[in-house]
């Protein structure tokens, strides 16, 4: 579904990604794991064109997205749930969800998808008239994922959904990811919480200082001594 080939990118003179290649197939959940500053967030940002590539190619369902501007990426079926959730704090939960359905193709199915998100996250229905800034961290993550789902994406990009949350809530967030998987969404997730994320995905890539160091089935990486020693602390 998504093919990333030899992509390089950065911010000004700082290069964050060096020739990264990666693939996500339809129906899969894929994780990109790695330490802080490895370039995980940059990788998602380059897919949604928030930062531009300095080299390489990206294709969605065989169609090149190299020249597609950021605000048109969502129309290709890619929804990016950004780092730190980035909800609109002074809009209500429902207004945040409505923003997720802004593109013309999503508006006609707004009611249907809103009902779906509320069914998936009943808490969001209870809080629909509450300002997003007043939600707890876990609820904000639900709202952010819900907002991502409102465009009816084929591929969901999740950037560190567990970051900054209390351990109990982190568990809930991974349950959310599991539920989304069960709904049949294709997911590319970036995480620092390696032990948890490897339990919910099919495959994973290990990213270190902007380069892919290792890749394979999630179970293999979870069992890999090097990964365990360096990132799980066992």
């Amino acid at each position, binding site marked *: 579904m998504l093919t990333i080939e030899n992509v390089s990118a950065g911010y000004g003179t700082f290069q964050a990604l060096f020739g990264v290649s990666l693939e996500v197939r339809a129906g899969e959940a894929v994780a990109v794991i790695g330490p802080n500053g490895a370039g995980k967030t940059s990788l998602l940002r380059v897919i*949604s*064109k*928030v930062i531009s590539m300095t080299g390489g190619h990206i294709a969605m369902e065989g169609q090149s997205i190299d020249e597609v*501007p*950021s*605000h*048109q*990426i*969502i*129309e290709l079926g890619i*929804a*990016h749930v*950004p780092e730190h959730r*980035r909800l*609109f*704090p*002074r*809009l209500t939960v429902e*207004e945040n969800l*409505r*923003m*997720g*359905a*802004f*593109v013309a193709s*999503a*508006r006609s199915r707004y009611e249907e998808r809103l009902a779906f998100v509320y069914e998936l996250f009943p808490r969001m229905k209870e809080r629909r008239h509450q300002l997003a800034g007043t939600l707890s961290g876990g609820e904000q993550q639900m709202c952010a994922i819900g*907002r991502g789902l409102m*465009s009816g994406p084929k591929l969901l990009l999740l950037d560190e959904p567990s970051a900054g949350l209390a351990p109990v809530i982190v568990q809930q967030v991974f349950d959310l990811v599991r539920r989304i998987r069960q709904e049949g969404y294709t997911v590319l997730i970036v995480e620092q919480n390696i032990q948890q994320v490897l339990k919910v995905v099919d495959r994973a890539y290990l990213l270190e200082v902007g380069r892919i160091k290792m890749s394979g089935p999630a179970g293999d990486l979870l069992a890999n001594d090097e990964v365990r020693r360096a990132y799980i602390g066992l």
Partner: protein
Amino acid sequence: MEFSLTDPFLWETVIQGLLFGGVLALLSLGLNIIFGVIDVVWICYAELIMLGMYTIFFLYTEYGFPLPVAFAAGIVVVAILGTVLHYLVIRPILHTEPINQLLVTGGVLFFLQGLATMLFSVEFRNLGVSFGSFEAGNMFFPVSRILAFVVSLVAVVGLWVFLKKTYLGTAIRAISQDRDVMPLMGVSPAKIYLVTSALGGGLAGLGACLLVMLYDIHPAIGLTFGPITFMVCVLGGLGNMIGGFIAAFIFAEFIALGGFYAEVEWGYVLAFVFFIVMMFIRPQGILGSRN
């Protein structure tokens, strides 16, 4: 002067103030939405209104268009001017120091004033339309002012509904909270800024429709309404439309009651003194939150 709550002239004054407050509220709306969304102050806002007034005046008196057509054209012309102002003047310096935006729109103010003087001369012009007056008890109110008040309220409510209920309106509110995340929703910030500028211009154009019924038109009329509109916005909390709405009525009542007990000029003096005092007490404005 004796103070009496049964004095019909006092009530007439209070209601006049209310009517004027409605107009000020409308004037503040466009400036506020521009600041709230784009974070730029259009110092030349009232000069856009002035150009709208001239548009209406000439279409109606020189070219013989019906008044409603002239009004509609005035709104459209100023909406286009607002868009052009954003595209040519604001957009290139959007990410520079805020002082640049003040200076450049200040420059546009003098440019437009000078241009209007050259094109239209300093002559005072009047639409020459009388709407008569409305009598209630012993009180008289010009219909033009009542009309202006009603139109203002309808515009305020209409804008609120637009911002609250539509995708575009929601995006306009959202972009002021987090600009950089907007593309991920499929929204182009540049386009939203243009739409917002057209909206701010359109509101200025609507302001022109109301003012042209009430006042003479001349190239410097912007200086009469520009500063007070700006102060209404600042008193309410720049960018906060509800705050601006409240502040408009406070200002208008100061001016009206000042005019009742002394002279209208004293009303302005009192209103400005109140403004200065409030700036010491609550520099962020009545409902403002930023510093």
